[in-house]
């Protein structure tokens, strides 16, 4: 937008981070990217800094959840392959 929001850098950073994490998404990077883009586009008009901060926190939570999901998925695969008869 034309109004440079001071939180813009943080939002872009979050978007890039989620995009990066999405490459490993079980249903595919494309699937994830489409939904990610839609989620950010839906809130593009939000101006209230408090609201934006809330949304950033939510996005960061999603990122941590994705990391946990990927770890668990890998751990379970390893456990099944190497530790269960």
């Amino acid at each position, binding site marked *: 937008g034309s109004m440079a929001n001071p939180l813009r850098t943080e939002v872009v*950073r979050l978007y*890039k*981070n989620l995009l990066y994490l999405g490459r490993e998404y079980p249903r595919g990077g494309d699937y994830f990217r489409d939904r990610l883009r839609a989620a950010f586009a839906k809130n593009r008009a939000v101006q209230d800094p408090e609201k934006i901060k809330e949304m950033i926190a939510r996005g960061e939570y999603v990122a941590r959840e994705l990391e946990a999901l990927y*770890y668990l*998925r890998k*751990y379970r695969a*390893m*456990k099944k392959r*190497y530790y269960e008869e």
Partner: protein
Amino acid sequence: MSGRVLVGVKRVIDYAVKIRVKPDNSGVVTDGVKHSMNPFCEIAVEEAVKLKEKKLIKEVVAVSCGPQQAQETIRTALAMGADRGIHVEVSGKDYDALGPLQVSKILAALAKKEEAQLIILGKQAIDDDCNQTGQMTAALLDWPQGTFASEVSLEGDKVKVLREIDGGLETIKINTPAVVTADLRLNTPRYATLPNIMKAKKKKIVNVKPADLGVDVTSRLEILRVDDPPQRQAGVKVETVEDLVGKLKEAGRI
């Protein structure tokens, strides 16, 4: 004590990829296939980084042997918190024949050169499942080894290792320098996040060749053929116990 830990990181086909055997049975298809760090090596890196965070060691050096792409695996280790990387460049036919013995010779030479106090490796790689590199490296260096570690604690110049053994756990205390190999339950490896991957670009990776370390990577092993695991046979449904007994007799099971 140097306070330096050497961690081996291997680039393998990603665990989630369905492996395809080449039509001529000479190996598996690797071109255009997603690769990533061997999951057991991630655990090794995490353990080394945790030791550094607890200030029990001073430096974590990530080593990978392989072609140019091995640097991506080193970058991942650097993003996880390793301080610097060593890329031991092996390509072409040498790389095809690179096995635990050759890698052990490289790691042993580097451990001496870097005066490592500890070498932490994954217990095995998910591609060849050899489970030999740690043991061979310890043997070549004549260092103690703590394999299948599910807990590691540094106690002065000794290291206490809780080992996963058949049906239980074994606790050993060994002198350093030593070789430790990581089992699955040792820790939860952190994710190499994008910001950390970016930051890791500033960290140094030096490039060496096995010959620079005085290592000859000639292999005496020849892979004759690689096959898919046998397909599971389709089952049969039986209506009665008599049918079941009959089928089992037919199959020569009873």
